[in-house]
């Protein structure tokens, strides 16, 4: 197509688009003036335009990413994708069919293609990456179970990873789970006993190895077609510090001192399955092997009766049953079971673990005895044993004998209950007794000392209370200027050191360990919420972490959920008082929590989730930022819907929008609303809202003031620090910004970005590389698990961190420091191997006049990153050295390269290597957009060419134009051209213009750092030298000497034969001799 015709099509097309659809036809008719082909062409384009919709509007990377996701089966809308794995291969396993799925993943039947056997393959569900908990559990399951080799424990064959998802290959069992086998009906007694013996034996073996299962339940016991029991799912298994293994807990977690009994214990967060949980497990207490015996007892009960021992409509009621209620006698439900089995079952489910079976072998022995007795007909029931007593359950009346036995149990039970009641009474007495003087004196708590709030022990079973009470207490305590609360990140840092995932629930025991590790936390606050009828009882204790003793305890009640936050507020005030805060102070900042944030627990939960997620994403610096903001936005929207006057939720919502580059029209309404509502907020909240609002309004002064005020009362406020840092950075107050970066890095030792930024900015404080290096190292260590590009980023920063002090020193004429840093850099592997390191420091050496040193650096430029610049830099070096042979050698080499670069072209022209220059210039346009060589580049090259040919008059305007652009685009060529342009003016006799050009270059000393750092220095120095020469020509000797002295100062550490230095020496020896180089 002729370009002219295409332009016509284009014109008509756009003109048509501007018209109303109704007028288009008429317009086209007229515009195309009978040229039907033209009209058709435009019409067809207009048609397509209407259909174009989203075509190409989505960036390519995203399109490709989505396609890939679809291919990988990530599209949940496609069932085929879901089935994807079946028929496929995972490692060397061919997946045959899906057997089932559960919370811990999907189980497939698969064939081990190497060993030619069938296996069960358990694959963790997708998206596990973020759920480190699940991942950890999975690993633990594999490790724990693989340590066990027992006929009644499912064998683990292999652990592996498939596309980032871990899997376990295990024994493929045929049969069904005990849950299915029971199916709501009692099993026959002999089978109960038979399977019971096997499971007890398995538990005995596991316990012997220091492993407790913690989640024994019918679903986790498999019964093969040959009635073999197999214990599954050691997913919750915990390694006990066994006598042999007690002191080598390599994971560093949960090493508890042995209890006073013969049982080692582990602390247990509440995991497990409520109806089968032991009371101690339900209470979240330290667990030992006896927890499994309780659960197993509950399983036996269900096998014998067809009904779970402890079950109720809600989890809360189930907990209550486990903790407080004795199940109906198994014998009462199934009179056919032997009396002794009933006895065994009820002994196993004793609530007090001291009264329970103490070991699995004891239980096993009793079951075996029963088995023997029933085999010899000595069992107490005379009912003939038949497999499965299906449909035979009768409303059994206990026989007299069994009644007595049952009574015996009840008596035992009563004893147990009494003990519990007594214990509660004692605890209550202790907690409620008036506190004489201040028991917290032992804490030695000072103003602004830190407390750690452990997760509340939620015994109500109401999920909404999980996590929100401790948060509410923290928010409330934040009002205090006396008590400061350890922020979550500090806890996470301690957790990281303990090799635990962030956001691990911190119970009392873990809290204490964190306090001890941290060393700076004075007190631990634990709390608990229970529900009696409709009344919530909230209690809190202050614990001295050094001794583990409670030094104070408080209790408050709430008659409804809505009253919980006020109750927390009262608790908070009592804690403050107990810690030593004066009542007058407390009153001063006594803003009721319910008003401070939100009266709604749901809203509070949503908000705290959003905030934590954002903080975590920011700390990790992993690039989930936009996504985290999007997720936060979702939560905050809900929070606002629940409580439309929740100031903090509005401001965070505004940020979550703004952080995703939404326009002000979207986020400002939220910021405004937060601002309007901030009167009810706590002081820190208020300042944060103000700071944020003004920031978004563009009133940085006010924002800065608010952020500063915020940090005065809450020095570790993470967002406050970040925002203020940003303010300072925008104001170019690098000192202050850096101080904050360092603070953040100290506050968040686990944050890559904080450490990286601190490392990067520290040199701005003039403290040099050594002070920054711990941060560099820390950031690098944190990055060790990251991708190459992440690591390269840090290496780059480390290099820059090293380079910056040099540059800074050079700018201040402190060449001594620059020289010292240079000799340090020489030995620094970060510089030597740091990609562009050799190039950067080569220029530093050149700036200091150390040509040999520069040569050694430039010669090192062999990595992919810099090899294209190596020849150019070596040519520059030769030019500065005045070594024409070498210079010409390199220039001829460069002419053959695909990427000649602009400095070498200028050097070729200057050296008169016209044919080489022409070859290189021909490549120049290809460097840029195909049809658009940057005009300035062509202009200056043409100008240089003309100058080289002696046509100064023609050259000058072109050079001037080219330089103007180069001034912003490429500083080294700007300095280079300044010298040439000045010479052109000089040749024309226009000395003043020449001086003006060179003075401009001289004043731009700071710009030598533009582009490759300090690459402009050699040319800048040349400009200086020329300027001094011109001054002398103009008789301005003083000006000339000022510049010459300046250069001498910069070249104190130069090689004695460095050409510029030699020239300067000559000038000193014969001050009247004019420097003339051309």
């Amino acid at each position: 197509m002729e370009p002219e015709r295409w332009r016509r099509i284009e014109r008509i097309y756009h003109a048509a688009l501007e018209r109303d659809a109704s007028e288009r036809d008429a317009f086209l008719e007229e515009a195309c003036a009978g040229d039907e082909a033209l009209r058709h062409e435009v019409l067809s384009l207009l048609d397509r335009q209407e259909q174009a919709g989203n075509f190409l509007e989505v960036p390519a990377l995203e399109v490709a990413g989505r396609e890939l996701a679809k291919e990988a089966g990530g599209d949940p809308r496609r069932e085929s994708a879901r089935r994807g794995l079946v028929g496929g291969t995972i490692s060397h396993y061919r997946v045959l069919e899906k057997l089932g799925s559960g919370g811990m993943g999907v189980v497939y039947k698969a064939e081990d293609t190497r060993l030619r056997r069938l296996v069960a393959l358990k694959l963790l569900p997708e998206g596990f990456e973020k759920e480190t908990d699940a991942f950890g559990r999975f690993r633990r399951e594999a490790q724990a179970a693989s340590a066990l080799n027992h006929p009644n424990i499912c064998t683990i064959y292999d652990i592996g990873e498939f596309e980032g998802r871990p899997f376990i290959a295990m024994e493929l069992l045929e049969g069904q789970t005990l849950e299915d086998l029971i199916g709501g009906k009692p099993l026959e007694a002999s089978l109960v006993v038979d399977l019971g013996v096997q499971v007890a034996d398995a538990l005995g073996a596991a316990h012997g190895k220091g492993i407790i299962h913690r989640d024994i339940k019918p679903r986790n016991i498999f019964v093969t077609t040959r009635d073999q029991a197999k214990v599954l799912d050691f997913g919750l298994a915990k390694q006990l510090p066994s006598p042999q293994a007690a002191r080598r807990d390599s994971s560093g977690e949960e090493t508890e001192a042995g209890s006073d009994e013969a049982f080692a214990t582990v602390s247990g967060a509440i995991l497990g399955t409520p109806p089968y949980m032991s009371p101690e497990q339900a209470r979240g207490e330290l667990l030992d092997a006896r927890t499994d015996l309780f659960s197993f007892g509950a399983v036996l009960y269900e096998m014998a009766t067809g009904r779970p021992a402890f079950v109720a409509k809600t989890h809360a009621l189930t907990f209550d049953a486990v903790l407080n209620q004795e199940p109906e006698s198994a014998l009462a439900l199934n009179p056919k079971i032997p009396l002794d089995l009933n006895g065994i079952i009820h002994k196993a489910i004793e609530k007090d673990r001291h009264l329970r079976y103490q070991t699995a072998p004891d239980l096993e022995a009793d079951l075996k005895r029963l088995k023997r007795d029933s085999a010899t007909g000595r069992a107490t029931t005379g009912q003939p044993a038949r497999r499965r007593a299906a449909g035979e359950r009768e409303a059994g009346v206990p026989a007299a004998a069994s009644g007595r036995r049952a009574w015996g149990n009840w008596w035992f039970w009563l004893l147990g209950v009494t003990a519990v009641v007594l214990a509660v009474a004692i605890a209550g007495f202790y907690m409620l007794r008036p506190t004489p003087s201040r028991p917290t004196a032992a804490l030695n708590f000072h103003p602004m000392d830190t407390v750690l709030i452990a997760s509340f022990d939620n015994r109500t079973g109401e999920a909404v209370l999980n996590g929100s009470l401790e948060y509410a207490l923290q928010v409330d305590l934040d009002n205090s200027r006396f008590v400061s609360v350890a922020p979550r990140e500090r806890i996470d840092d301690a957790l990281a050191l303990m090799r635990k995932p962030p956001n691990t629930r911190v119970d009392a025991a873990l809290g204490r360990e964190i306090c001890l590790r941290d060393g700076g936390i004075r007190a631990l606050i634990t709390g608990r919420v229970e529900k009696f009828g409709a009344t919530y009882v909230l209690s809190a204790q202050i614990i001295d972490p050094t001794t583990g003793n409670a030094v104070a305890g408080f209790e408050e009640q709430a008659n409804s959920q809505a009253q919980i936050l006020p109750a927390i507020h009262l608790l908070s005030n009592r804690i403050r008082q107990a810690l030593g805060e004066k009542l007058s102070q407390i009153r001063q900042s006594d803003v009721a929590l319910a008003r401070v944030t939100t009266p709604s627990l749901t809203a509070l939960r949503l908000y705290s989730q959003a905030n934590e997620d954002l903080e975590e994403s920011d700390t990790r610096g992993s690039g989930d930022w936009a996504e985290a903001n999007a997720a936060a936005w979702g939560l905050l929207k809900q929070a606002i819907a629940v409580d439309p006057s929740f100031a903090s939720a509005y401001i965070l919502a505004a940020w979550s929008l703004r952080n995703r580059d939404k326009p002000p029209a979207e986020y400002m309404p939220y910021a405004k609303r937060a601002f309007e509502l901030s009167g009810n907020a706590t002081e820190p909240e208020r300042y944060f809202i103000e700071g944020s609002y003004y920031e978004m309004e563009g009133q940085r002064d006010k924002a800065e003031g608010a952020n500063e005020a915020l940090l005065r009362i809450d020095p570790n406020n993470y967002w406050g620090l970040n925002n203020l840092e940003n303010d300072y950075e925008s104001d170019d107050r690098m000192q202050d910004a850096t101080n904050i970066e360092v603070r953040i890095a100290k506050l968040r030792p686990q944050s890559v970005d904080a450490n990286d930024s601190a490392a990067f900015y520290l040199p701005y404080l003039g403290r040099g590389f050594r002070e920054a290096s711990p941060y560099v190292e820390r950031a690098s260590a944190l990055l060790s698990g990251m991708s190459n590009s992440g690591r390269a980023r840090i290496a780059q920063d480390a290099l820059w961190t090293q380079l910056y002090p040099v540059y800074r020193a050079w700018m201040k004429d402190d060449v001594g420091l620059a020289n010292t840093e240079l000799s340090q850099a020489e030995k620094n592997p970060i510089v030597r191997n740091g990609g562009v390191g050799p190039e950067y420091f080569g220029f530093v050496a050149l700036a200091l006049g150390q040509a040999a040193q520069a040569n050694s650096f430039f010669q090192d430029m062999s990595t992919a990153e810099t090899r294209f610049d190596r020849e150019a830099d070596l040519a520059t070096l030769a030019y500065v050295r005045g070594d024409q042979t070498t210079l010409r050698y390199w220039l001829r080499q460069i002419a053959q390269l695909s990427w000649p670069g602009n400095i070498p072209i200028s050097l070729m022209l200057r050296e008169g290597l016209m044919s080489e220059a022409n070859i290189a210039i021909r490549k120049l346009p290809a460097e840029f957009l195909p049809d658009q060589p940057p005009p300035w580049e062509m202009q200056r090259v043409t100008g240089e060419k003309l100058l080289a040919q002696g046509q100064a008059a023609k050259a000058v305007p072109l050079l001037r134009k080219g330089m103007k652009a180069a001034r912003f685009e490429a500083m080294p060529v700007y300095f280079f051209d300044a010298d040439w342009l000045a010479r052109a003016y000089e040749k024309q006799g226009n000395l003043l213009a020449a001086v003006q050009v060179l003075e401009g270059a001289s004043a731009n000393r700071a710009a030598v750092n533009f582009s490759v750092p300090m690459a402009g220095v050699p040319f800048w120095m040349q400009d200086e030298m020329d300027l001094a020469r011109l001054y002398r020509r103009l008789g301005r000797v003083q000006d000339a000497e000022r510049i010459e002295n300046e250069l001498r100062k910069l070249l104190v550490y130069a090689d004695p034969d460095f050409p510029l230095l030699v020239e300067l020496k000559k000038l000193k020896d014969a001050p009247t001799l004019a420097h003339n180089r051309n």
Partner: protein
Amino acid sequence: MGILGCSVGHSRRQDVTALLRAWSGGDEAALGTLTPLVYEELHRIARRYMSREQSGHTLQTTALINEAYLRLIGTRPASWENRAHFFAVCAQLMRRILTDFARSRLSRKRGADAAHLSLDETPEIFQEESADWVALDEALGRLAALDPRKSQVVELRFFGGLSAEEAAEVLKISPKTILRDWNLARAWLLREMSDGKHDGA
């Protein structure tokens, strides 16, 4: 970092830019080093889709993609002397890698059932038009012959992920012109890819 998402404005990603430079200078070996970097991003995006869609969250794609481009390319590198050139090369690179990627998958798929990597399963992407990467690449090549600037606009915007304003800055033309070019180029490409009859020449 920070809630403001502030970034430190210094020279990072020198490695990628140097490789880009090498590649645009004709060093095909550099492409081998760059491709895994792009793939890494691609897989990251794909993974996000998978986990996100399953958990019922909506994905903030714009942010995600911007972030990917930023991670790959970074802000303007200090040692890159010409901004326009830099972005142009990035976009070219992306075009090359993504097209190659599609081509490789295409050949894998052809072995099975699909004669053509049909994109009709991805209507939200190419909007129900049957189009594919290879066809797009070829059509863009023809557009470049007819009107180089329009092909550059498409390259910068679609492959390079630049906004109209950014593309305008790179090409040193007004955003309005960019939008006009964009409008026509999309119509032209769509026609080209759907009928395949017009060669535009």
